[in-house]
């Protein structure tokens, strides 16, 4: 069987499974799986760029995804003018002072001769800068958070169209990745993993606690959407007429219409990114990345600047994750920092890449769809299995109730099992690297 045929069959299989969901459960859930599958596939392309092309072990995906979500709020929410008047400038000034402190510390470190004096000056700069920053920053934050605290209490965004937030999410994630890469990329693979794991947690901690930025755990809901609201469609006589003529209930038709609209938007983004990733893989740049991945020492001896190339690919991959994060927040219509969990947003993406085939963009896309489908469907399947297994037990047996309650946790177990089985028996994934 040729590889093209095999790959087509694999994609057709996943497509058929999604269609089966549509027939057996509902078309709404099928489209939901499709939409999240598209987003997952984009995240997987980003991680594949870092791991498959360059061998960078980034387990901070969650952080970049969350930054993409933050970008949606910052770009599309209307600005809260009262808050800006109350303390916006103070916050900006505080942040600038904070940045200036860090820059000053770095300058001291690079410009002064090493010795006791340098350490002393550096500590003085850092401590003085910290208190100065807090002194300016904190009153501003208090002022902003008191402006209509129940409904707003944050600075708002720029009030631009929400689609602009997607590239903005990529840019924000890229910026963060550049900062992180500058400090952490020289480290060994294990250390980089732990460093990125920590940075992702810090990004989430900042988003949860800095209420002036995006309301923290109070969440920002009702974000602008690129598509019409279902309720508006239902009130539109033209739409209702068309739905009835197609023989679909207008309410269902409106939900399907919106979801399909998202699918089209996401598909366009996915195809563009996939095309770019494929081009990158085939280009001399892609060959260089793989050469570095396979033998860093040899590549360095050939005059390749390994750290700089790693920084490039780290920033690019993270940017793609940021775009996917912005798309996901747009789809959800709300930013909920409390819902970001590393198992779901970092390690699951890793399972997608490894199962799909690291080093192969098509594999990553396939893995994104397949694993997302499983992640959603394992729960009902697990519940069904539990019901079958416990059907012999009495209705009111405690064991039975416990087993049925616990079926929801089957998905973590299944994901781990799939990852281990693929690593053991087909370590190159479903669609291996050529």
């Amino acid at each position, binding site marked *: 069987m040729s590889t093209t045929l095999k790959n087509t069959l694999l994609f057709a299989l996943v497509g058929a499974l999604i269609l089966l969901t549509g027939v057996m459960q509902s078309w709404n859930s099928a489209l939901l799986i499709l939409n999240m599958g598209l987003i997952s596939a984009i995240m997987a392309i980003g991680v594949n760029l870092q791991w498959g092309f360059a061998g960078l072990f980034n387990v901070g995906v969650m952080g970049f995804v969350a930054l993409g979500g933050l970008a949606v709020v910052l770009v599309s929410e209307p600005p809260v003018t009262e808050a800006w008047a109350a303390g916006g400038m103070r916050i900006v000034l505080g942040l600038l002072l904070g940045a200036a402190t860090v820059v000053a510390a770095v300058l001291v470190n690079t410009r002064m001769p090493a010795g006791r004096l340098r350490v002393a000056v550096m500590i003085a700069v850092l401590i003085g800068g910290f208190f100065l920053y807090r002194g300016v920053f904190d009153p501003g934050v208090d002022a902003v958070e008191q402006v209509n605290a129940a409904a707003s209490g944050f600075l708002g965004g720029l009030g631009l169209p929400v689609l602009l937030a997607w590239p903005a999410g990529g840019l924000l994630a890229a910026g963060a990745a550049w900062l992180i890469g500058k*400090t952490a990329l020289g480290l060994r*693979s294990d250390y980089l993993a*732990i460093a990125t794991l920590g940075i992702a*947690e810090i990004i989430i*901690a900042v988003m949860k606690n800095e209420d002036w930025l995006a309301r923290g755990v109070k969440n920002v809901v009702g974000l602008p959407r690129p598509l019409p609201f279902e309720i508006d469609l239902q009130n539109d006589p033209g739409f209702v007429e068309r739905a009835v003529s197609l023989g679909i209930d207008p309410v269902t038709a409106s939900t399907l219409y919106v979801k399909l609209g998202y699918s089209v938007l996401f598909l366009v983004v996915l195809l563009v990114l996939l095309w770019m990733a494929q081009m990158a893989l085939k280009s001399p740049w892609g060959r260089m990345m793989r050469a570095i991945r396979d033998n860093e020492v040899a590549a360095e001896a050939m005059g390749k600047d390994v750290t700089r190339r790693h920084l490039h690919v780290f920033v690019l991959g993270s940017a793609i994750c940021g775009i996917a994060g912005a798309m996901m927040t747009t789809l959800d219509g709300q930013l909920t920092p409390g819902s970001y969990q590393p198992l779901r947003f970092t390690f699951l993406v890793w399972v997608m890449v490894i199962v799909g085939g690291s080093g192969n963009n098509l594999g990553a896309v396939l893995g994104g769809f397949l694993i997302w489908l499983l992640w959603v469907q394992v729960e009902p399947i697990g519940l069904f299995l539990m019901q079958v297994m416990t059907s012999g037990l009495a209705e009111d047996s405690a064991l039975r109730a416990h087993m049925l309650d*616990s079926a929801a946790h089957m998905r*973590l177990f299944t994901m*781990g099992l799939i990852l*281990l089985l693929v*690593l053991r028996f087909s370590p190159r994934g479903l669609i291996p690297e050529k």
Partner: protein
Amino acid sequence: MDFLNAIVALSNFVLIPAIAYGSQLALGALGVTLIYGILRFSNFAHGDTMAFGSMVTVLVTWWFQSMGISFGPLPTALLALPFGILGCMALVLITDRAVYRFYREQKAKPVILVIVSMGVMFILNGVVRFIIGPDDQRFADGERFIISARDFKEMTGLSEGLAIKTTQGITVVVAVVAVVLLFWFLNRTRTGKSMRAYSDNEDLALLSGINPERVVMYTWLIVAALATVAGTLYGLDKSFKPFVYFQLLLPIFAAAIVGGLGSPLGAIAGGFVIAFSEVTITYAWKKVLVYLLPDALEPSGLVQLLSTDYKFAVSFVILLIVLLFRPTGLFRGKSV
């Protein structure tokens, strides 16, 4: 008097909690560092191994409590601890046999083993939630305090109280016992010496006839014991919640790396460094400063450097500083 009050407040809110937390982190970091030294990979499943061992302990504790067995003023969990350790040992031996051994024989790259441990992490996470559920579980019993704040105030006449929880006392005592046993084992016994030899230089160790599988097995057994003890102590001190153990992974890794991966002494030092910096930086210093400073200088705010939610950030920043300026850690661990 004010000075004494300041010291008491400091011990009550900073020193004692940090010592207890530091002991728990140190035990966890010892496990990570041993795996790194012998099996040569960073074990992402360590937090969930801790959760599994503690879960067994919790279940046995409940069973004991239901049968009316108690340990007097001490928590019943201490009686159940050996069973938890045995359960955890069985678990790690099974995972080693079923999962890790294959890659060891293949001489797979460390990063592959890290990814494999991610898979194990998922599975353990699922198993623990499946058995005991994702919620908070309480299993501490016995006396709550060695000294309660009120008793202390009556005893000394100071206006600040000093409370020492039983669990904090037990944590320190158990941690000291565990560490002494571990160092005795590593330095005095034949198996311990062969473990250290294997960690220092694998090829030389093999040439001198050390059986690698045996070394690996003993390592896993010790790691299981350490992980269960650390997890149970943490659960007694705070509460048992599976997700929290996953989150402990970060400070534990930070502790192991700050001390120097592969160095047991470093892991202990790292645990305390991380714990003390987390607690001191997120503590609101107002109370202590009010006693120490003259009235005119009394601080108006809480004098909290960072809010408690940023404690991960603290351990992480320390980790980054150490990695940038002294990549092998404080105690010269290894870098592969």
